[in-house]
């Protein structure tokens, strides 16, 4: 199994606060990896470190390394534009731009220089198809994305991320704001997508992690406590803290 993303002794500080404490983690290619843990444990922080979204927060200090395909993410020579083309991100609240559905999906490719209308049309259709959204919206591609339902909006955000052909997709609690049906549709989608992409998902929903993740990492207070195959983590966790968390014995 290939390592797609590697974290080596990663520390992150928000000013005085030591948010990530020496994270060592290998995330495998074409697998779904779930990051679980109580609120404030650092899982979202870690996720955002992978595509350097933490750069935009003041007073952030990072030591240690993250490698993607063996290239160091925090090196001086890294172009964050290319990095974020390679690593897409989907957020907790669906956040389509206040533009048409077409423009939303085409936004990414346009950023990276695609101007030809035919090319954009193909990309938009393909991305929306991948998210099983095309059939639902093909008659209103020019209408505002804000008119879609929550579940559709989130699938649109995934399509938007796919439009730039990333290798990796990061999702930060993508279904926590959605109804159960939309949630299941998106889980289905992620299971299909992992054939082509490496997926890392932060989730609070234990059942979701056990349904879709191949590997799960448990974070607590900035440390990574346990990492392994999901079936092991959820049936025979090695660390008592993991067991206590997943069985709901503490927040």
């Amino acid at each position, binding site marked *: 199994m290939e390592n797609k993303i590697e974290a080596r002794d990663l520390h992150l500080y928000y000013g005085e606060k030591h948010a990530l404490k020496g994270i060592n983690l290998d995330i495998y290619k074409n697998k779904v990896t779930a990051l679980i843990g109580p609120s404030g444990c650092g899982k979202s922080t870690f996720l955002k470190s992978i595509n350097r979204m933490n750069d935009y927060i003041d007073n952030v200090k990072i030591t240690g390394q993250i490698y993607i395909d063996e290239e160091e993410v925090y090196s001086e020579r890294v172009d964050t534009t290319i990095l974020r083309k390679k690593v897409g991100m989907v957020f907790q609240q669906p956040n389509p731009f206040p533009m048409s559905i077409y423009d939303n999906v085409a936004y990414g490719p346009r950023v990276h220089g695609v101007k030809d209308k035919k090319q954009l049309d193909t990309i938009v259709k393909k991305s929306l198809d991948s998210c099983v959204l095309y059939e639902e919206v093909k008659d209103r591609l020019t209408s505002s994305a804000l008119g879609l339902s929550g579940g559709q909006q989130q699938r649109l955000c995934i399509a938007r991320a796919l439009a730039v052909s990333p290798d990796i997709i990061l999702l930060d609690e993508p279904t926590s704001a959605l109804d159960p049906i939309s949630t299941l549709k998106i889980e289905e989608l992620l299971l299909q997508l992992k054939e082509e992409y490496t997926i890392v998902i932060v989730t609070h929903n234990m059942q979701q992690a056990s349904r879709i993740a191949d590997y799960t990492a448990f974070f607590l207070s900035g440390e990574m406590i346990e990492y392994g195959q999901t079936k092991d983590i*959820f*049936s*025979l966790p090695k660390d008592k803290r993991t*067991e206590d968390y*997943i*069985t*709901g014995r503490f927040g």
Partner: protein
Amino acid sequence: MVRSRFEIELKALRTELNKMTYLVIEAIEECVVALKTQNIELAKQIVENDIKINQMERAIEARCYSLILKQQPIASDLRMISTALKVVTDLERIGDQSADIAKIITTLQGDSMYRMIEHIPDMARVAKKMVKGAIDAFNTNDLVLANQVVMMDDEMDEYFIIVKEEISEHIKSDIHNTDIGINFIIIAKYFERIGDHATNICEWAEFKTTGSVNEHRLL
């Protein structure tokens, strides 16, 4: 404490399991007494009490299904609840075996042959020890104890062979002993079956702790 309702319900489940175990062991003990004293009234009582044991099986099953539905248990909680489902089946069978033994006792006509079959009381003793041991191992996750109980099954099998031979002798010596002899063999067989079920309970005890049965990973 988080999930306190769940904890309370788990505790209730364990309590109910222990109650059922108590009833089952009581049935075995009463069988031994009824045999010894040829107390037909007591034997009838044992048969009636089996209804209670069957009801408890259903009640505990219902509890387990409700917990699975409402609480989506995982890890050790899931193993606890799923093995509870399995164990009550074995306990109920043990109860049935005791009731069947009691039914036979009611047909015995104050025969003295019992005094000649020394080893049936031994089998009863081992059966009771195995059941108690199995449940203790289950409750306390004591795999060493579980192993010991499984070993006792060999003892049980040996006793059965001895009893069979003893009874054969008695039948050969006097053809009028055939009927009662056959009954006692059946009784011995039931005790042996009780031992088998106790062994099953030990397997579930192993699963509850390790997620594997006989080295086969199930969960």
